[in-house]
């Protein structure tokens, strides 16, 4: 099965080298060909399962609790300043 890998890597925000595209595209095609197997089944009247947990709508009281210390979190950022994450300029 053929896939448009250049469109997908854009959506997935992953830059691939040309040789990576050549390597991954046929592998992905093969896996997609395999998963087409599900088309053998008639699932018209089947409800989807998003998870296998017995729970639904878990709620808790909206109360103030402990949270992580800002400096501890920013310590792992590639770049930060004044308590904020720094990214390249978005708007000129």
């Amino acid at each position: 099965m053929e896939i448009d890998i250049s469109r997908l890597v854009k959506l997935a925000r992953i830059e691939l080298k040309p040789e990576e595209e050549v390597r991954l595209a046929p592998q992905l095609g093969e896996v997609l060909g395999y998963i087409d197997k599900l088309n053998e089944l008639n699932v018209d009247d089947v409800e989807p399962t998003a998870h296998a947990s017995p729970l639904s709508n878990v709620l808790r009281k909206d109360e103030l609790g402990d949270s992580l210390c800002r400096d501890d979190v920013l310590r792992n950022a590639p770049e930060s300043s004044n308590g904020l994450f720094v990214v390249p300029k978005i708007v000129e």
Partner: protein
Amino acid sequence: MTMVHSLTINQLIEKLRGGELTSRQIMEACLNRIDSVDDKLNAFISYDVEDALAQADIADKARSEGQEGPLLGVPVAIKDVIAVKNHPLNCASKILGNYESPYDATVIKKLREAGAIIFGRVNMDEFAMGSSTENSAFGPSRNPWDIDYIPGGSSGGSAVAVSADECIASLGSDTGGSIRQPAALCGCVGLKPTYGRVSRYGLVAFASSLDQIGSFTKDVKDAAIMLQVIAGLDDKDSTSVPEPVPDYTAALSGELKGMRIGLPREYQVDGLDTEVKAATESAVAKLEELGAEVKEISLPHTEYAIATYYIIATAEASANLARFEGVRYGARIYGEDPEEMNCKTRGAGFGDEVKRRIILGTYVLSSGYYDAYYLRAQKVRTLIRQDFLEAFEHVDLIATPTTPTPAFKIGEKAKDPLEMYLSDIFTISCNLAGLCGVSLPCGFSEKGLPIGLQLLGRPFGESDLLRAAHVYQEATDWHTKRPDLD
């Protein structure tokens, strides 16, 4: 004489209580063992000797002051996907750079409360994606029974560390078999609890509806001890379930009389290795001899499990791994604008398997394909789950081989992702259906590689699961075999 590092949790605790051993001696024994074997095995990505010994001394002091704890002074190694405060966390990927966790996962908090020494980061397939621990940015781990062979994955390091006696127990995570499969291939006990039984807070998410934390141990009794410590409701994980936590150790005693064990007809697949088939069949015969009632069952949608899994797991992964974009943590490669920075950072930071899965997940969720792939897979998931719930009307447990073959050679399947995916056939449905499962040693191939028996239980049926596995171990000695690494 049994070496200190070869002891089980249960044996160690007895010796610690009796004053025969200190936890410092245990920790030193594990560190010495790592020194002598881990160059070959590569189970550990990193470990902090000073920190480990300091924790051991604290445990010894606590014990001398009369304190107790189910794991007081026991070293437990942690898969590199679970957060330990101020320790590195890489998910065996390059993309996290020098990341150090700012907090403890709930399971780590619980282990600490039980007195465990939280020790080392063990190797895995990058972001838990893989079945061989070859997809690690820190190099592959190796099977302690033959270092030319893979240890299984994704929690390969966790399995190797326990089987090679480099630690007493370890934690791993299981999304489609990542605890049970390496446990089978390395010859230790791997327990995947029911989805919701153990909090996932602090586990880096791969596929949130399938991921579950569990343990690697040297026997089933230890698996019960570990589960007792880590199970339970957590207000930090809304998918953890408010089901009471039974006394798992107490549940071990009892007999198998009247327990009904099902053998799925559909698991007699092409490609099931004859030695694996023979070993698991004799394990089932043993269970029968011990009082279990064995009957054939049917799980008609088995052949659709792998396709279903690789749609759902990759879809969830593509969403979960969106957070690694070079802004908040880890490595960053700059670009003209944030989008280019995201693309370059992710292109350089992720390995092949992670890229394949994110791209596949992006595809099955993309506009125009969602219904054909993702929604259809969710519907087939319903059918697979119904198969199991129906089967559990007639049996209490299901017995299968954990894997279709013993460990394969390093590099053998690395170039063929689909071939690798197909090796997960017996473990994957358990996660889709939300069951619990355990793999335990049940024999060896002619080449001397371990073979695992998988038992699957009802949701929250860990007590039955552990009891059957324990009764089997009481009557056999496969779990006492150790690889010769000297």
